[in-house]
C-alpha cells in the first residue's frame, strides 16, 4: 500500500460518441470542481477543434475532491484521446491510472474502440468500472449491453447505469471509483520516477508536462532529468489542475499534476518519458516508452509560393505543441517549395491542416497522403520513402515492403459478408472471427496500412449502414507487389499526383483518378489529355474537352451587377488555382488520388 490511501487515479475510456466528455463534465460539476454556470460545455476538450469534432485530441487531467461515506477523497480524472491515431498516447494515460470507467452507449452497445480500449486498460491492470450511459434514450437497451459485457469478460452485475446528459447515476459512479479503484502503490521515499503522460506548450512557461508521480517526490526548484533524452532542467512551476492550474510545493508518489522547467519544445518532453532527479535519481526508467513514429506522410505546399516562410514558421510553432508532427523541406516540380510532413494518422493530418489554415491563415495544397515504403533495389541498396515520387524505378527494384496493421472490426452478424468482402478487396488477410454476443461478430484481419488510409472507414460505414466499428494497430512490414502510378496532365507528369498501389489495382485506380481529375479540373481553352501510367505504359486516359462557352445570354432588366459579381467570383476562384504548364488546376485535384475507391 502506498502513502496516500485517499487518492484515486482513474480515466474514462469509450468508443467515440458514447458520451465520455459529457460524463467528465458531470463529474466535475458533481464534485463542485466547477459550478454549472462556469461550465463551458465539455471543459476537458479545450481546443476549438476538439469541441467541433466532438473528439478529444489531447489528454488532460483534473483533480476532483469528493466526500464519500469514508471521508474526503482526491480523485484525479485523466482524460484520454479517443481516436485510433493516438493509441500510444492512450496507453500512456492508462499507465498513469489504477482504474477506468468504461463508458458504453446503452443503445449502441460494445464497439471496436470499446474493446480496443478495454484490452489496453486490462494490459495496464486497471480496475474496470463499466458504465452504461445514455439510458435516457428511447432506444436504450441496458439488458443487451449487460449481456455483451458478460461476453467480453466483465461482470454485468457491477455495471452502473447512468445518463450523463440528465445527471443520473453520477453519485454511484463516484462512489464506485472510491470503493473499487485501488489507491496508488508507490513509495515517496524512493528515488523520483514520474511518468509524462501528456504535455502542452504554454507561451509563458514553455512546455508544461502532465505527470503521474510513481515513486519519490518532485518539488519546485528541484533539478530534474528526462531519462529518454538525458536533458536536465530545473522545475520552475509545479501544480495541479482544478481544472485551473494551481501551484503546489510538492507532488509525492501517487499524485497527478504538472510541472514546467523551461523546456522549449514538446518534442523534448516526450509522452511516456520518465522524470527523475539529477541528484540520487532512479537507475531504470518506467517501462513502455516509445518515440512517436509518424505513419502517414503528405506534402504541404503554400498556395501562394511567397508564403513558404510563413508555412515553415507555422509548422515550427505547431511542433512546439505537437511532438508527433515532423516536417522536412521538399520540392515538387508541380507545386514548388513545400514540406513533407509526417503524421500519426489521417485525423492528425486533417487537424494540422485545419490549424494551419484557421490559426495561421495559410492556404494550403495538400498532396494525397502516403505510408512509408521500404524499397529494396537490385544493386543491394535499401531506401525508405515517404513520397511516392522518390521511388527510383530506373534503378531496378527487387521488392517493396509496406506497413501492415492488425485490425479489429465489429459488426452485426448480418453484415459479416460485406465486411469480409471489403477486407478482401483491400488485400486483407483473415485471422479470426468471434461472436461477443449472438448478434455481433468480431473479425480480426491483417491489412496493408496504405489500403485503409483512404476511404476504408467510409466504405465500412456505408456497407454496414453505419453499424461497424474499426480499431487497429501497426503490425510490421511485408512484401507487396506494388507499383507506382504516375499521372500526366497535357503530356507532363505531375509528381505530386503519383501514388503507389498494388499491381492488380493499378489500372482501375489509375482510371478512377483520371475520371476524378476530369471532374475537378475546369475546362481550358484547349483539349487537355489526362493519363495514368506505370513505368511509361499508359493504363488509362481521359480528356477534358476544350471550353466552348462561358457567356451569359441575357442581361435581365439592366441587372449588370449580378453578372459582374458572378464574373468577379469566377476570377477570385481562379486565383486559388495552380498553374501546371498551360493547365489551371484547382487545389482539390491534388486530393483526387484520395477518392480513387472504385
Amino acid at each position, binding site marked *: 500500500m502506498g502513502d496516500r490511501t485517499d487518492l484515486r487515479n482513474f480515466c474514462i475510456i469509450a468508443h467515440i460518441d458514447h458520451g465520455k466528455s459529457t460524463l467528465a463534465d458531470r463529474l466535475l460539476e458533481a464534485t463542485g470542481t466547477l459550478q454549472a454556470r462556469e461550465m463551458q460545455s465539455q471543459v476537458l476538450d479545450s481546443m476549438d477543434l476538439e469541441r467541433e469534432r466532438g473528439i478529444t485530441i489531447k489528454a488532460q487531467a483534473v483533480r476532483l475532491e469528493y466526500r464519500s461515506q469514508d471521508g474526503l477523497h482526491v480523485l484525479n480524472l485523466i482524460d484520454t484521446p479517443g481516436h485510433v491515431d493516438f493509441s500510444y498516447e492512450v496507453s500512456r494515460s492508462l499507465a498513469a491510472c489504477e482504474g477506468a470507467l468504461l463508458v458504453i452507449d446503452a443503445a449502441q452497445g460494445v464497439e471496436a474502440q470499446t474493446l480496443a480500449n478495454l484490452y489496453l486498460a486490462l494490459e495496464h491492470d486497471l480496475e474496470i468500472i463499466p458504465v452504461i450511459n445514455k439510458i435516457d434514450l428511447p432506444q436504450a437497451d441496458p439488458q443487451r449491453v449487460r449481456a455483451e459485457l458478460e461476453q467480453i469478460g466483465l461482470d454485468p452485475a457491477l455495471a452502473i447505469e447512468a445518463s450523463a446528459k440528465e445527471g443520473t447515476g453520477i453519485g454511484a459512479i463516484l462512489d464506485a471509483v472510491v470503493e473499487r479503484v485501488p489507491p496508488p502503490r508507490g513509495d515517496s521515499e524512493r528515488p523520483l520516477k514520474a511518468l509524462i503522460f501528456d504535455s502542452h506548450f504554454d507561451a509563458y512557461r514553455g512546455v508544461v508536462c502532465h505527470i503521474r508521480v510513481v515513486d519519490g517526490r518532485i518539488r519546485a526548484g528541484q533539478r530534474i532529468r528526462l531519462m529518454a533524452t538525458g536533458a536536465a532542467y530545473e522545475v520552475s512551476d509545479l501544480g495541479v489542475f482544478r481544472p485551473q492550474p494551481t501551484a503546489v510545493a510538492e507532488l509525492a508518489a501517487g499524485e497527478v499534476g504538472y510541472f514546467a522547467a523551461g523546456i522549449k519544445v514538446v518534442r523534448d518532453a516526450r509522452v511516456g518519458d520518465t522524470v527523475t532527479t539529477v541528484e540520487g535519481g532512479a537507475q531504470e526508467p518506467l517501462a513502455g516508452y516509445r518515440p512517436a513514429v509518424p505513419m502517414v506522410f503528405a506534402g504541404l505546399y503554400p498556395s501562394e509560393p511567397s508564403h513558404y516562410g510563413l508555412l515553415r514558421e507555422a509548422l515550427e510553432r505547431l511542433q512546439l505543441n505537437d511532438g508527433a508532427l515532423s516536417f522536412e523541406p521538399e520540392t515538387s516540380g508541380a507545386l514548388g517549395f513545400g514540406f513533407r510532413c509526417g503524421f500519426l494518422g489521417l485525423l492528425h493530418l486533417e487537424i494540422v491542416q485545419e490549424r494551419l489554415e484557421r490559426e495561421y491563415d495559410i492556404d494550403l495544397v495538400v498532396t494525397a497522403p502516403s505510408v512509408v515504403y521500404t524499397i529494396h533495389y537490385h544493386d543491394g541498396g535499401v531506401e525508405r520513402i515517404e513520397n511516392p515520387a522518390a521511388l527510383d524505378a530506373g534503378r531496378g527494384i527487387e521488392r517493396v515492403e509496406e506497413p501492415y496493421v492488425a485490425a479489429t472490426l465489429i459488426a452485426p452478424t448480418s453484415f459479416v459478408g460485406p465486411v469480409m468482402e471489403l477486407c478482401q478487396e483491400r488485400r486483407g488477410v483473415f485471422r479470426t472471427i468471434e461472436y461477443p454476443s449472438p448478434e455481433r461478430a468480431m473479425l480480426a484481419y491483417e491489412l496493408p496500412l496504405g489500403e485503409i488510409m483512404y476511404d476504408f472507414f467510409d466504405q465500412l460505414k456505408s456497407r454496414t449502414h453505419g453499424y461497424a466499428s474499426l480499431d487497429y494497430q501497426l503490425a510490421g512490414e511485408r512484401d507487396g507487389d506494388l507499383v507506382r502510378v504516375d499521372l500526366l496532365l497535357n503530356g507532363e507528369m505531375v509528381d505530386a499526383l503519383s501514388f503507389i498501389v498494388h499491381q492488380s489495382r493499378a489500372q482501375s485506380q489509375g482510371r478512377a483518378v483520371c475520371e476524378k481529375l476530369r471532374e475537378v479540373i475546369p475546362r481550358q*481553352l484547349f483539349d487537355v489529355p489526362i493519363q495514368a501510367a506505370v513505368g511509361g505504359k499508359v493504363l488509362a486516359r481521359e480528356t477534358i*474537352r476544350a*471550353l*466552348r*462557352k*462561358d*457567356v*451569359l*445570354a*441575357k*442581361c*435581365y*432588366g*439592366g*441587372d*449588370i*451587377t449580378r453578372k*459582374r459579381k458572378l*464574373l*468577379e467570383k*469566377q*476570377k477570385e476562384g*481562379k486565383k486559388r488555382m495552380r498553374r501546371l504548364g498551360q493547365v489551371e488546376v484547382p487545389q482539390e485535384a491534388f486530393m483526387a488520388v484520395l477518392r480513387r475507391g472504385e
Partner: protein
Amino acid sequence: MSDGVGVYLHMPYCPYKCHYCDFNAYRLPPRPGTLEAMAAGIVEEIARAPGDDRGRQARSIYFGGGTPSLFPPRAIAAILEALRRRYRVVPRAEVTLECNPGTVDVALLQELSRAGVTRLSIGAQSFDAAMLRRLGRGHAPEDTRLAVRAARQAGFDNLNIDVIYGLPGTTAAEAERDAREALALGPEHLSAYALEVEDGTYFGALRARGTLPLPSDDEVVEAGEAVARACLQHGLERYEISNFARPGRRSRHNLLYWHQGDYRGFGPGAHSHMSGRRSWNVAGPGPYLKAVGAQGEACAGEETLSPDGRRGEWIYLRLRLTEGFSLRAFSLRFGVPLDAAYPGVRRQLVRQGLLEALPGRVRPTAAGRWLLHRVAEPFLP
C-alpha cells in the same frame, strides 16, 4: 453617350410562371385591382422618387416583366404620362413593351399604340407546341403568329421576337427551325437567348434530379451559330451576342446597357445606373408598394463602382457587341490607352484566338464571343 437617359419599367405579374423563369415575376393574384394598384405605385414612384435624372432627355423607354401586356392600356398610358412629366421624352423615343402571345389582340394593341408604345417585343420562345407545354408557356405557336399579325394590323412597324435555344432535348436543327419560323413572320429584330437553368426554378429542380436532358455547351454553341446564320439569310445582323436586327433597327434601349449608359428603373426590383452608381429597388410587389407609399421610392441597395471596376465593366459590356470598341473610344473615355492600362493583355488574348488582330479596334473572334468571361476576366480588377 449623350446626356440622354433610358427608362426601364418593371411590370412584375404574369398569368403563369414559366418553368425556366427566375425573373422577378409573380403569378397574378386573383384579387381585382392588383394591376391598377401596381401601375399607380409605379406612377407614384416616377412622380416622387428623388434623383438628378429629373428633366433629362429620355430616348428609350422599356416595359419589361413579367408580362406588361397584362396591364390595361390606360395604366400604361398613365405611366407614360408620368414619365413625360419627369423627363423630356424625345419625339421619336423608342418605347418598347413586352407582350406574350395569347394576351393581346388588335384593339388592345391599337390602344397601346395610341398611348405612345412604338415597339413590341413578342415572347415566342419556341414554335414547337410540345416544347411550349414543356416550358410551361400558356400559349400555342399559332398564338404567336396571331400576335404578330395583330401587331401589324395595329400599325406597329418595329417588332422583336424572342426565342430560346439550347432547350432540353434539342439540337442545332430544332433551334434553327424555331429561328426560321420566327423570321418568317418578318420581324425587324430577333433576340435569341441560350437557355440558362437557374436553381430555384422548376427546371432547376429537374436538373438537380437529373431528369432535364440539357444539350452540352458544344451543342448550345452550334445551335446559337445556326440561329445566327438563319438571321443573316433574312437580313438580320448580329450586333450583340444574343441580338439580331435589320439595319437601323437595333434596340436603342438594349444598346444603352452595353454602352454603360445611364438608365433609370421604376417598379419592383428594377435596376438603375447613373454614372457609375448602380442601384436596385425592393423586389417583392407588396414591400415595393409599401415603400413607395411611405417614402415615394423603394431603393433596396446600391453600389458605386471603383474607377477600375467601372473601366473593367465598360470593356466587359462593350465586348458583348459584335463591333467591340475602338481603342480611341477607350482612351477618350478613360484618359489612358488600353495597352497601357492592361499591359500585354490584348496581345495574349489575340494569341489565344479570343480577340481579332485588328488595328485600332478590340473585337471578339467567333470563338471569343462565346468565351466572353475568359476574354473580359483580365480586365476586371
